[in-house]
């Protein structure tokens, strides 16, 4: 029934819309036909042609009215009105290209910035993790050891699968130079836990995932493409990783992703690192727990609590201090960055708000110049609803055009943002202009158009009608509700801009404070690189020590080069801590001993790095393998453990060592900013590679100081290293200055964005106040002319205009300060060494803003002065 209805009516609707001229022609023809026939009939009754025609028309009772009623019958009226409004708007906009371009550009800036930030927020915060039913995935608050995870797996009933991964460097000696790759060493449960299966081949099974099982490896898509040219026949081949042979059994899908840094291959932890996997104390597995269907998180948490208590009771040495908690995986990944992204989002929303205020203000100014036109249309019978709709249509058209340009700007913006390498934003690399970004931008543009079109629309419709027809525009002091509204807009604009300026300044100041932080070492002319000796060939410490010694000798023999080794380089992100005990003090229960950072060095590390020696002596040639095991501690260690006692000569040891290995403290060095410029240093113990009892510590950073360019230093390092062993890959090659700069990447990213937003906000606000003042001066030309004619001096006029501008600026500034005072505390976690209500910033920036605003008023004021009073009086 309905479908039949549409068979008849749809072609009619389409014709009314798209072949409107044809429909109109038909209507005219039909009525003309009627008129002619009727006229003929009247002629037959003896009327004159003229009378006959008039009678026929009279019978129709108003030709145009009837036509209009026929058009109404078409039921496409709203759409037709819209099309008419759009046509009218396009024509009007084309006629004022300056206004159109300014409005579109203003909105494009605001919307573009929002689209860019939203696409990042979308990628990092909103998009669900790339795992099936990812809301069912949880993680534990701390890392687990392999035996612990086994026990949890045995005792749980809430989880269908519990995966664990540790990322480790592996040497891949395929073709050419040896390279270091990242291995995801995991258990077989990882695949069902994540819900991801290989795209080619298969994953390893529970039976294969055992000590002494087969050496199997899965390749990630990227590694497979880079090193095997995406060869589908790769399954079954074998590759050598860190000296051992592995059989390839599968390739992961292209979009496979693990939180944190990307991995190249996946292998069983029990095969690839059996030594570490055996120990309950090696808590190094990141965990992925998939909830059993139907199991609740509360239930699972309660279960995990009892398992944790069981582990703590059975293995107090290793598990007493774990206090495992379940956290949603998503929360664990994005929880830290949510707040700072929201700060950025708030900042960019303020930019949009300012852009919108400018937009509304522009439209108000325009509607003021169109008052006559609107008045005429009202007088001709345009209903005010229709007028409002027309103004809003124009506004939405502009905002959608602005949004389209904004998308282009946004896409560019995202490219630039990604170039800034925002460290620590998980999954930022998946940022793209996807459907939700498009939808967001569209909705944003649409509502911007409607909301900020309403202001001019209402002021346009409520403009008196007859008033403006006879108005001679001799308005005196820029009166009119439209103008009052514009001043209000400028005030809010200044207030908003001030919030951003203050926030950006706080960021800038804390960034410069961070830059000035003394790292505790001299970073210039230092080249660093990481080296890890493969277990297969360097299991014994004698071989490792021989390598260290050879390497240092070779490097130091090169002219103008000094080299040393350190296990954990400051600001590299690497750190290692151990429980420890102090000789002569009561030994705490196992598992509750204090923790200390442990770092192992070789060569003249402290003097080479420029770390100051505060007490005692540096390591020297007398400290060799077999001689007294000595250690140097940092200032933080002394402050925490030996605040009043003599530290030199005291002895410390790692807790629960296999047999005591006391280290005698012979020196104290200054603290370095190991964890970054904005993080405090922790207590640390340094010992020597030649004396340490830890054969598994096969990694090291080579630190080279030399005057030559980093490139030639690197060439020397490679040449010397490979003359000893040409199978060792060097990684993380960087100058120390770059390491230092990279530690501030995060802050730099936030600062750059906030700074850019503040700059845009300032520019828009200045344009806004300039526009309003310029308009006001034009409005007051006449008044100013009278004042000058009556003898006012230029400075009186100047003061008149400037004081008007200053009032707006001051009002905006006061509001802005109040708002900033309330808001900046939300960014305290982004600041360093400065209060979010820093009085100097809160004073200087408003003053500067007022000054800028006054300058923006000064230009139009000067123009007012230049006017000849006679012309001014005659002005319109």
């Amino acid at each position, binding site marked *: 029934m309905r479908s*039949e*209805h*549409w*068979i*008849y*009516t749809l072609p*009619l609707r389409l014709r009314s819309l798209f072949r409107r001229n044809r429909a109109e022609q*038909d209507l005219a*023809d*039909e*009525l003309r*036909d*009627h008129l*002619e*026939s*009727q006229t003929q009939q009247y002629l037959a009754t003896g009327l004159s042609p003229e009378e006959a025609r008039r009678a026929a028309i009279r*019978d*129709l*009772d*108003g030709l145009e*009215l*009837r036509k209009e*009623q*026929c058009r*109404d*019958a*078409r*039921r496409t009226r709203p759409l037709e009105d819209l099309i008419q409004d759009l046509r009218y708007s396009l024509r009007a906009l084309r006629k004022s290209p300056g206004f159109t371009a300014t409005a579109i550009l203003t909105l494009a800036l605001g919307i573009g910035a929002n689209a860019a930030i939203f696409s990042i927020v979308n990628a990092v915060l909103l998009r669900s993790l790339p795992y099936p039913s990812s809301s069912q995935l949880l993680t534990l608050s701390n890392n687990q050891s392999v035996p612990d995870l086994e026990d949890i797996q045995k005792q749980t009933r809430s989880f269908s699968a519990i995966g664990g991964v540790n990322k480790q460097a592996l040497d891949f000696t395929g073709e050419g130079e040896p390279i270091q790759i990242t291995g995801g060493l995991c258990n077989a449960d990882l695949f069902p836990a994540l819900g991801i299966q290989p795209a080619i081949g298969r994953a390893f099974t529970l039976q294969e995932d055992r000590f002494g099982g087969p050496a199997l490896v899965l390749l990630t898509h990227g590694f497979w493409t880079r090193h095997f040219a995406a060869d589908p026949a790769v399954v079954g081949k074998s590759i050598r990783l860190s000296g051992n042979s592995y059989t390839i059994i599968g390739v992961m899908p292209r979009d496979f992703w693990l939180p944190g840094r990307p991995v190249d291959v996946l292998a069983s932890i029990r095969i690839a690192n059996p030594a570490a996997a055996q120990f309950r104390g090696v808590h190094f597995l990141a965990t992925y727990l998939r909830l059993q269907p139907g199991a609740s998180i509360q239930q699972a948490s309660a279960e995990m609590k009892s398992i944790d208590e069981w582990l703590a009771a059975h293995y107090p040495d290793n598990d007493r201090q774990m206090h495992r908690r379940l956290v949603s995986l998503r929360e664990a990944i994005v929880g830290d960055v949510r707040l700072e992204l929201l700060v950025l989002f708030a900042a960019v929303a303020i930019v949009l708000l300012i852009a919108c205020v400018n937009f509304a203000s522009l439209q108000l100014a325009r509607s003021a110049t169109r008052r006559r036109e609107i008045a005429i249309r009202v007088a001709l019978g345009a209903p005010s609803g229709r007028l409002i709709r027309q103004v809003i249509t124009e506004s939405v058209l502009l905002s959608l055009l602005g949004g389209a340009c904004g998308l282009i700007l946004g896409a560019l913006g995202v490219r630039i943002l990604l170039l800034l390498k925002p460290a620590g934003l998980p999954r930022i690399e998946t940022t793209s202009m996807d459907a939700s970004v498009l939808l967001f931008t569209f909705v944003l543009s649409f509502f911007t158009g409607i909301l900020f079109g309403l202001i001019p629309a209402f002021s346009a419709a409520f403009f008196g009608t007859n008033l403006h027809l006879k108005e001679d525009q001799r308005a005196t002091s820029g009166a009119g509700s439209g103008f009052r509204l514009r001043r209000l807009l400028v005030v809010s604009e200044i207030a908003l801009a001030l919030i951003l300026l203050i926030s950006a300044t706080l960021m800038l100041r804390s960034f410069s404070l961070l830059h000035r932080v003394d790292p505790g070492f001299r970073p210039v002319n230092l080249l660093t690189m990481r080296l890890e000796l493969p277990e297969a060939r360097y299991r014994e410490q004698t071989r490792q020590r021989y390598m260290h010694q050879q390497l240092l000798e070779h490097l130091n023999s090169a002219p103008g080069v000094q080299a040393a080794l350190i296990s954990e380089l400051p600001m590299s992100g690497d750190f290692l801590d151990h429980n420890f005990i102090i000789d002569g003090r009561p030994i705490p229960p196992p598992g509750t001993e204090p923790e200390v950072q442990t770092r192992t060095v070789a060569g003249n590390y402290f003097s080479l790095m420029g770390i100051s020696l505060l007490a005692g002596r540096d390591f020297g040639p007398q400290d060799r393998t077999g001689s007294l095991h000595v250690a140097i501690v940092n200032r933080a260690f002394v402050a925490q453990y030996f605040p009043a006692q003599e530290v030199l000569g005291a002895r410390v040891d790692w807790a629960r060592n296999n047999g005591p290995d006391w280290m005698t403290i012979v020196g104290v060095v200054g603290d370095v900013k190991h964890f970054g410029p904005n993080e405090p240093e922790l207590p640390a113990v340094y010992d020597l590679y030649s004396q340490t009892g830890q054969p598994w510590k096969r990694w090291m950073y080579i630190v080279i100081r030399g005057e030559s360019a980093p490139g030639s230093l690197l060439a020397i390092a490679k040449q010397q290293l490979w003359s000893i062993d040409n199978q060792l890959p060097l990684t993380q090659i960087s100058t120390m200055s770059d390491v230092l700069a990279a530690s501030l990447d995060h802050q730099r990213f936030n600062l750059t964005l906030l700074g850019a937003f503040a700059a845009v906000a300032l520019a828009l606000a200045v344009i806004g106040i300039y526009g309003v003042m310029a308009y006001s001066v034009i409005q007051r030309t006449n008044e100013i002319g009278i004042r000058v004619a009556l003898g006012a001096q230029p400075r009186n006029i100047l003061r008149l205009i400037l004081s008007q501008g200053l009032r707006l600026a001051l009002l905006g500034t006061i509001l802005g300060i109040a708002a900033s005072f309330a808001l900046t505390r939300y960014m305290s976690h982004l600041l360093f060494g400065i209060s979010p209500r820093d009085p100097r910033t809160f004073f200087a920036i408003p003053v500067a803003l007022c000054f800028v605003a006054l300058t923006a008023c000064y230009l139009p004021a000067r123009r007012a002065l230049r006017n000849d009073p006679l012309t001014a009086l005659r002005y319109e």
Partner: protein
Amino acid sequence: MSKPSDLVQGTLDLLLLKILALEPLNGFAISIRLKQVSGEILQVSDGSLYPALHKLEQEGWIKAEWRASENNRRAKFYSLTRLGRRQLDREAANWNRLSTAISQIIKLEEV
């Protein structure tokens, strides 16, 4: 001149559907037919005829095509659709019910 409001609401639609049910006609012919069949009792202004026709067309009850008229001019001829036939039946039935009810009331004896 008689106004369309003199017609009971919706009656014009019924009349037009009925007239077109007999044969396809153009607007002018319809107007003449209206005058013929209803005599002087129901006066329909030519003016309200066309909006009403367009409304019926947009409802899908009648359809229009351009054809040569008797005096060999291009004219828009309206004819009933299947939907229109159904609508006519419905409206005629309504009308019968209404008029019967009203005549019953009018026939009541006054006391």
